[in-house]
């Protein structure tokens, strides 16, 4: 009897907690959605209880119809979107290619200085990445590729190689070496082994890397804000400037919510879709053994 009462209260407590927690989680999200569909530019005009019957598409209409002009000092959203998409695609291709090759070399080949290189790579990526920005800025200026969005992919790719190498290496080491050895006996070169034997087996980690590399540029701000002129900005800079009260010309929190929604929804779908891989990738690389 006593046991039953304890159980009842534990269940009551659990459900109360879950309901309150769900509210805390969902209220800001619902508010964001509701704000995206509210006309005007004042946060105060967003109703606390969303009323879909009064929703307006004005923010989305503006986002899609507005075109930047030389005097406007700020790029339009579709342009920013396309530029970011280009960077993201380049990044996806580059990251998967380089990470797989590098990871393969460190997992399967023997050469001098391997440990030294691994340790150096690990140490290098500990440095706050934007501290190299003054130097990168000069480098880009010297080569005349400043203000050209696509070249930013170079920095992203180079920056992601060290960590991804560890991921791919960790993944490949779980594949029995006897596979390579039998391929080598049959006369396969190392590259053939990678292409024909290992590649089909490492598809999951490649998928994980590709999704990560694709999402990265949408959510990086500093490089894009520093290296690109206002007419060439990307989505994240667009979002930041529309929600920056000091940027009086473009500040419009409701328009920001609409833009943020357009970016957040596809990424959320990707995240939920890739949930298994993502958790796998997060845990597998760092803590083997």
């Amino acid at each position, binding site marked *: 009897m006593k046991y039953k009462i304890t159980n009842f209260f534990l269940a009551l407590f659990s459900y109360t907690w879950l309901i309150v927690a769900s509210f805390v989680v969902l209220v800001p999200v619902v*508010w964001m959605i509701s704000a995206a569909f509210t006309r005007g530019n004042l946060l105060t005009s967003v109703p606390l209880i969303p009323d879909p019957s009064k929703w307006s598409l004005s923010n989305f209409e503006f986002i899609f119809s507005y075109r930047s002009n030389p005097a406007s000092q700020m790029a339009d959203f579709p342009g920013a979107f396309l530029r970011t998409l280009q960077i993201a695609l380049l990044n996806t291709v580059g990251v998967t290619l380089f990470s797989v090759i590098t990871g*393969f070399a460190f997992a399967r080949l023997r050469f001098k200085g391997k440990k030294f290189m691994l340790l150096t790579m690990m140490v290098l990526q500990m440095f706050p990445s934007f*501290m190299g920005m003054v130097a990168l800025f000069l480098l880009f200026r010297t080569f005349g590729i400043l203000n050209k969005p696509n070249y930013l992919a170079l920095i992203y790719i180079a920056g992601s190689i060290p960590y991804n190498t560890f991921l791919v290496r960790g993944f490949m080491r779980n594949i029995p070496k006897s596979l390579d050895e039998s391929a080598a006996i049959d006369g396969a070169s190392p590259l053939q082994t990678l292409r024909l034997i290992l590649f089909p087996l490492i598809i999951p980690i490649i998928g994980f890397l590709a999704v990560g590399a694709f999402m990265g540029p949408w959510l990086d701000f500093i490089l894009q804000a520093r290296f690109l002129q206002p007419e060439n900005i990307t989505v994240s800079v667009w979002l930041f400037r529309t929600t920056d009260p000091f940027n009086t010309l473009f500040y419009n929190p409701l328009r920001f919510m609409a833009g943020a929604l357009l970016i957040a929804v596809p990424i959320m779908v990707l995240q939920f879709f890739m949930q298994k891989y993502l958790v796998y990738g997060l845990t597998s690389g760092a803590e083997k053994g």
Partner: protein
Amino acid sequence: MDKKPRFDQKLLAIFTKPFRVVKEVLADIKKHPDALKSALLSVFIMGAGQFRNKQKSKGSIFLGLFLLVVLVEVLTGGYIYALDEIARFPADPGGTVHFIRDYGGFFSYGLWGLFTLGQVVGQTLYRGQFVETFNKNIPWLTADNSVTLLGRGLIVFVIALVLLGFYIYNIVDAYQTRKQINAGAEVETGIKYFKRLWNDMFPYIILIPSLVMIMFFTLVPFLFSFLLAFTNYTYRLQIPNVLIRWVGFDTFKLIVGDAGWLNMFLGVLSWTFIYAIMSSFTVYILGLFQAIIIESKFVKVKKLWRTILIVPWAIPAMISLMVFKNVFDTNGLANQLLYATDMMRPVSTFLYNIGLQGRIDNPIFWLTANYNGNLAKFVVLIVNLWLGSPYFMMLITGVLTTLPKDLYEAAAIDGATRFQQFKSITMPLILRATLPAIVMTFTFNFNNFGAIFFLTGGGPAFAREAIPQSMRIMGGVPGQTDILISWIYNLSFASNAQLYNIASVYSILIFLFIGSISVFNLARSKNLWEED
């Protein structure tokens, strides 16, 4: 327990290795004077020793590389004009002609720039001529730009290091091959050599693209900002009319010696630690708590609750943070909710009474009022909790589902209560499985630029009287919620700061701290050291 040598022993062995090697090499040279001759030939001209060893193809590779380097140096320099021009434009009285500066090629000029950071500034006379910012006809009348020289010099330095590697390899190879020939071994033919070279070099060849990219976009920038810490580079220097100077540890002395800077730094540092520890801790506790609740036998439709509660994880953090910036805007959701529920007055009073608010406001200035520093910090932690707990909830849920059931059955038979089971079985297992993730979260949060920058932008600002005099002059004042990394960003890029040298010093500190945690963590893990 562990048969392998300990990490510190390995480290000691690595450091003493050079001495042992030198000793062995010297002993070896004494025994093979003929091989030394080949090596010496290669010292003066790359490849010459290989030709003496009758390895023509290998020798030509080295010779070709050697000639290429010489050619690049000569063609990119102004050596052919040097004699004529020095006669026409002699050094100023009391001054000198900076020969490498004026006529040096790619390599010598680059290294000169790295070591001197420039010698001639704009708007002055040099060799009787007027120095401009840019003179396209006479290169040496272009003023030295220290920053460019530093960057360029670094790239040359790294390339030169690689070449030095080849040079040393060329000498060692000449020596070793001769030794083998004298011992009666066959000389390797060209084709055989190339085949072996391809096989030996294969790992390096496929690594070259990655290594070059890492060199240009990670290593060189890293060294660059490291070196900036030892210069006096700030925006106040009117480059190229002024040169940057190597100042040794002066910047380090400034940030420690100046009471204002030291106090600000200690303030920011302690908040950085509080933030990193508190945010990791709260996120873990909440994640654990929710995982246990969802996995408990009282809760039905677990999947629904789990899906709702991981929503914050799925939304990109940058976007959530910017949304929360609006939620805690003066007109934002937080204040609107308080008004709608008639709670503004009591909540504001409560926040004042527990010391988070500096005065009783209506509405509450969550992130902007300079007397609300504590409130802004509190909001930063709460928002981080919202963002971060789902990750740990998922992680711990995963661990909970893999816990061995028989342990609990055995414990129940032995009469352990549910709480005892939790304390002695569940908790230790969860902790062991999630410890690496906790360390990672801590280091991540220590450098969590976005969590501060997108939410508060470092604000609220300090009240004017709290800002030390030296900072009012130099700029670079942090905000009250700035952690080190976001302060460094402002020091580097805010229009009234750009104190690159100070920013570099702080990032070296961060690097040393975070780097040592991570290296320590990795060095202990089998993953890195295990050879297969």
